[in-house]
């Protein structure tokens, strides 16, 4: 008995193939449409040739110096106010100098062991003409670091009234050269021509945008309408919210129920704080 082979084709085979192709096309089309409709672009802000990323472009001590400068730029205006608060009438306003920074323990200017570990940069202040006739910008130059292949830093504080730019702004510049002279001015184009590069941070705000979408920060800020705007509770409900000092969550219902629920919330908060353990539960 010899074996025989038969090819068995399903009766609706051709139809099944077409149906499968149609379903695949429909699925891909639907997914494509959904991505087009709801997709979010997570773009990273570009770094230009005349810029350098603090996150990816700087390393070790230079990165640490930049991060200190980045925080200090928020504090310098406060210190400026403090040191000029009790000026005599007509006395010139002045920017904090290196001695002031020693009093405020302000890195990267403060001369401690960390400053030594980070190359003992020599900082100098350039303060332009007196207030009212100021031309140019205030600059702090950090140069002559002792570590191999260490760069120099320049913190530029621009002034609206000097026609420097449209807003008061502080910009941090870096150059790979170990020694630099104080620039003649803090104008961007001139600094770029000398080889300085603006340092841009990879900030927490950029990371939040990457993680939660480009409008995450704006969404969070959109909730900031002052406090309390209209007694509306945090969860957005409009019924039963209390506006007295003991208010907690907005709980619909009568006062007794609200108070009981608020007491429960207070107990939960105490539990979280690690206080009154064992009392409530």
């Amino acid at each position, binding site marked *: 008995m010899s074996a025989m082979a038969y090819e068995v084709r399903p009766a609706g085979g051709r139809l099944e193939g077409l149906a499968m192709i149609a379903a695949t096309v429909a699925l891909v089309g639907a997914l494509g449409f959904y991505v087009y409709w709801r997709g979010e672009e997570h773009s990273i802000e570009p770094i230009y040739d005349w810029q350098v990323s603090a996150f990816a472009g700087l390393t070790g001590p230079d990165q640490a110096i930049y*991060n200190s400068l980045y925080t200090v730029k928020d504090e310098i205006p406060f210190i400026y106010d403090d040191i000029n608060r009790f000026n005599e009438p007509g006395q010139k306003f002045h920017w904090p100098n290196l001695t002031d920074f020693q009093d405020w323990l302000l890195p990267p200017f403060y001369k401690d062991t960390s400053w030594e570990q980070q190359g003992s940069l020599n900082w100098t202040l350039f303060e332009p003409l007196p207030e009212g006739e100021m031309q140019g910008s205030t600059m702090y130059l950090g140069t002559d670091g002792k570590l191999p292949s260490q760069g120099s830093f320049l913190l530029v504080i621009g002034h609206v009234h000097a026609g420097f730019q449209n807003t008061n702004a502080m910009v941090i510049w870096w150059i790979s050269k170990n020694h630099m002279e104080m620039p003649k001015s803090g104008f961007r184009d001139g600094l770029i021509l000398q080889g300085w590069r603006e340092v841009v941070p990879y900030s927490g705000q950029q990371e939040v945008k990457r993680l939660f979408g480009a409008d995450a920060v704006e969404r969070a800020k959109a909730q900031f309408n002052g406090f309390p705007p209209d007694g509306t509770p945090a969860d957005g409900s409009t019924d039963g919210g209390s506006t007295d000092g003991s208010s907690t969550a907005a709980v619909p219902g009568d006062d007794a129920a609200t108070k009981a629920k608020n007491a429960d919330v207070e107990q939960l908060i105490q539990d979280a704080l690690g206080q009154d353990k064992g009392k409530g539960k």
Partner: protein
Amino acid sequence: MLSFTRMLVRTVAVGALALMALTGPAQAKTLRVGITLHPYYSFVANIVGDRAKIIPLIDSDANPHGYAPQPADMIRMMSMDVMVVNGIGHDTWAFEILDAAGMRNKLKLIYANDGVSLIPVAGDPTGEKVVNPHTFISTTAAIQQVYTIARALGELDPENATFFRDNARRYALEIRKLRGEFDAKIQGADLSKFRCASMHSGYDYITQELGLQVSAVIEPRHGVEPTARQLAETIDRIKAANVNVLFAEKYFASKLSDTIRDATGVRMYSISHISSGPYTKEKFIEEMRENLTTIATAIRESAKSGS
């Protein structure tokens, strides 16, 4: 005499009214500020004083690494007016709770790291630049967060904005003084002999601020233990770099650190992640002081050993 008494009463009454006008009416509602991590409790407590109530999102003894949200967290969240978050990877569970409680886009959020210049995880053998979320184990990055939080709270509560800002500045100086104390402890020590590795990337910000180089990090990713092969490679790197100090986690001990110490002969020191124990106003300063003291001890002992 009678008219004098009337005048006196009137003067006192007017004075009292003027005083009330100056001090303003009692705030109708106290701002209720939620926080996700222990350091943020300390930051907010030092900024707001007694002018806001602070609500921790999770229990004080919960481990924020890989935390599983609980129903009580949602109830606490719903009682908040605003919440301070790390937002860059150390409290991802807070966003799960936001979704579970239906509070996404309803609860105001303060991203504490908005203005922090982030750094990559140190000692990554692949050279990949991965964002380090441990900005709160630091001094400079912590100060930046204190300012960001104070500014945002001031926008929410403008009447207290100056109070918050002044407190933030005072607190920033307190944090900065920690560096002065640290400096006094290592005066004269030879830092050239100090070479460290750490169990995880939690201490990169503080070591960078102090000018100390981390040669290797044991955990390949935050909260992920290395494979046997990765561990062997890390031990080789520790030996090759002549690392003599290993910083391990104080609260979340791992047997791995003992294994590495035995294999390499490094001295081990515990650093606090500032993420366990009761929430207190003083916690951040106290534990950072302890951390800096530990690092100073490690530096001095490295210098003495001559290794």
